[in-house]
């Protein structure tokens, strides 16, 4: 009997690895570590666990890659003939990856996918008629404000940029900045980029044409650059410190109560509340340039793409589909990120009063959301834009002149590449 038991145990020990290795392993790059204790980390761990339960023959190996390393690593990997199966890529960089050939289209896998159940059109992550990514979460640029500071100053929540100027000018002091925006070149100038793309859209313009050339040296661009000048100069609503502000500066300023209002992505809302602002932090639709008219917003967010040299494309597609399924998107919402599927918003969790803000966001972007155009030189544009905008506050450069220089300098840099 003992001998039989030993043989059974030995057989099991030998067979189990064989069975396990018979499972397909896909590699998934994300900047979040599963189960790291943060809401998104815990959500990712849950996603992977549920995926394994649904597809026992597929194992997901999550490799954590810092967000700033995803682009260079993916492009270098593609050039070397080796990429992960699935990668989390920010929508800004999709055109770059498509152009670099580091991702592959997923049309052949997506034939049976539900193309209508998305907050934005299916084509929003398609290039040259080919679908390259599935949106995993959305965010848009909203006005986040400290209700306690506005109430103390006796100002209403502004709905236009003129009102922002007036209200923030009333609040601004050495201790509290009335309205903060970020013009730093650090952190890839993301704060400046995000603000600019939404402001130009709100002003009725667009940043780039189909060839990726800057085309906002017009009324819309002038309106935006004049707003920068007014906020710093005429209204004194913002301090010179905006020149060094990054996304995190504004996030922390709202938490600490040293900033009264800022335009930030909705994905920071819950984190700022949890980080110290609490119930004092509220959100409002982004201000527009015309009273009574809702401002259009560019909807951004993380997407899932399939690596150019994915070893297991069918398994990879199953993972992508799973992560963006309506059921999984409820978990995404619980972690504080905005779901991308329309049907997710019918879930009971999103009907709760405390989740109301997310439904309001989805309604806002369903009516006013649009996709932006991000050329391959998007990063370079951010550096040039930040420098040009800084000159308004630091060197008193006329807004028109700063705008013309930014557009000319960026378009020249593209020409230099050819």
């Amino acid at each position, binding site marked *: 009997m003992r001998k039989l038991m030993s043989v059974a145990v030995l057989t099991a020990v030998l067979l189990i690895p064989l069975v396990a290795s018979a499972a397909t392993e896909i590699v998934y790059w994300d900047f979040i570590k599963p189960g790291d204790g943060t809401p998104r980390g815990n959500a990712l761990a849950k996603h992977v666990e549920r995926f394994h339960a649904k597809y026992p023959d597929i194992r997901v190996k999550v490799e954590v890659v810092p967000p700033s390393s995803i682009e260079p690593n993916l492009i270098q990997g593609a050039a070397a003939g080796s990429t992960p199966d699935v990668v989390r890529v920010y929508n800004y960089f999709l055109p770059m990856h498509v152009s670099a050939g580091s991702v592959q289209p997923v049309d052949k896998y997506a034939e049976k996918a539900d193309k209508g159940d998305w907050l934005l059109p299916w084509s929003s992550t398609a290039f040259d008629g080919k679908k390259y990514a599935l949106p995993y979460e959305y965010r848009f640029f909203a006005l986040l404000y400290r209700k306690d500071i506005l109430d103390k100053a006796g100002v209403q929540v502004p709905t236009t940029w003129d009102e922002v100027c007036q209200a923030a000018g009333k609040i601004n002091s*050495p201790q509290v900045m009335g309205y903060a925006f970020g013009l730093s070149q650090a952190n890839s100038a993301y704060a400046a980029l995000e603000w600019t793309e939404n402001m130009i859209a709100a002003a009725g313009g667009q940043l780039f044409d189909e060839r990726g050339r800057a085309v906002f040296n017009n009324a819309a661009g002038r309106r935006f650059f004049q707003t920068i000048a007014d906020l710093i100069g005429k209204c004194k609503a913002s301090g010179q410190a905006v020149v060094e502000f990054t996304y995190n500066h504004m996030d922390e300023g709202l938490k600490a109560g*040293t900033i009264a209002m800022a335009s930030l992505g909705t994905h920071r809302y819950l984190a700022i509340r949890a980080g110290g602002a609490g119930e004092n932090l509220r959100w409002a639709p982004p201000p527009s340039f015309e009273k009574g008219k809702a401002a259009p917003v560019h909807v951004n967010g993380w997407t899932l793409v399939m690596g150019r040299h994915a070893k297991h494309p069918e398994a990879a597609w199953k993972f992508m589909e799973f992560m963006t399924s309506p059921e999984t998107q409820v978990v995404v919402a619980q972690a504080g990120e905005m779901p991308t599927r329309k049907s997710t918003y019918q879930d009971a969790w999103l009907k709760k009063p405390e989740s109301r803000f997310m439904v309001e966001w989805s309604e806002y972007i369903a009516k006013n959301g649009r996709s932006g155009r991000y050329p391959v030189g998007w990063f370079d544009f951010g550096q040039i834009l930040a420098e040009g905008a800084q000159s308004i506050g630091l060197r008193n450069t006329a807004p028109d002149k700063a705008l013309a220089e930014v557009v000319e300098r960026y378009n020249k840099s593209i020409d230099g590449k050819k």
Partner: protein
Amino acid sequence: MTSKPVIPYLFLLPSLALVGAIAFYPIYYAIEISLYETRFLQKVAFVGLDQYARLLADAGFLRALFTSLRYALASLALTIPIGMMFALLLNRPIRFRAFFRTILVIPWTLSQAVTAMLWVWVLNPSYGPLKYLLDQAGFGQVVFLSNPDWALKIVVLVNTWMTYPLPTILFLAALQTVPKELYESARIDGSNAWSSFWRVTLPFMQNTVVATAIMLTLQFFNMVTLIYVMTGGGPLGSTQTLSLRVFLDGFYNFRLAGAAAVGMVIFLLNIIFSLSYIRVLRRSELY
């Protein structure tokens, strides 16, 4: 007739191959890629010295070059004397010497990214501790990293704070090699502390000082992370150095050939610096 021994070279071959692969091949590759037009990581067309010609016509490149020189030389001008000062102090039989030696080395243990984030927080114009102290002192709103006339100076000071422990340790070690009897002789001859330092200590430490200066100059010239995290090269490009430009052009803009060309310029400057220091060393009087 004696034949040349081959076996020693055979033993050296593996190490040379490794050094060649790690050091010389990347340099060769960078030179090669700088002679091409590239698209992402692919060579598109051979253009000869076109990339270098574009650099000479680029005002941004020349500005970055001068910023790099100012950053490296200013940091060196502060780090070496401060390192020497602390080394001399720590070489004296003071109380709690071991404790001070440990405390003074702490900045060196922090990475560039952590140092940068720490100082960005300290200097934050909204909620940083320095702002709080200045407010208490009645100074009102003072901005540091937002000021293009000050940003580079601030980064130099932060770099000095982070780096001074290295020369301190190296100089402290070199001080142990100076014969004590020389100080006694100098004292008998009527030398004071300053002339003892200038005529005894420094000449004996000459090699260490020059080697440290070479090492630090190369380090400062090639530094990216500290500047990238603190300012990103701003405001108004006032802190953009050549090495930061290479990093951004190579890894964010994927202008590989342009980045390689700038990298070659940095490489040449590094060689010039190193050879200059060595020349100064050879010309000086040696014990």
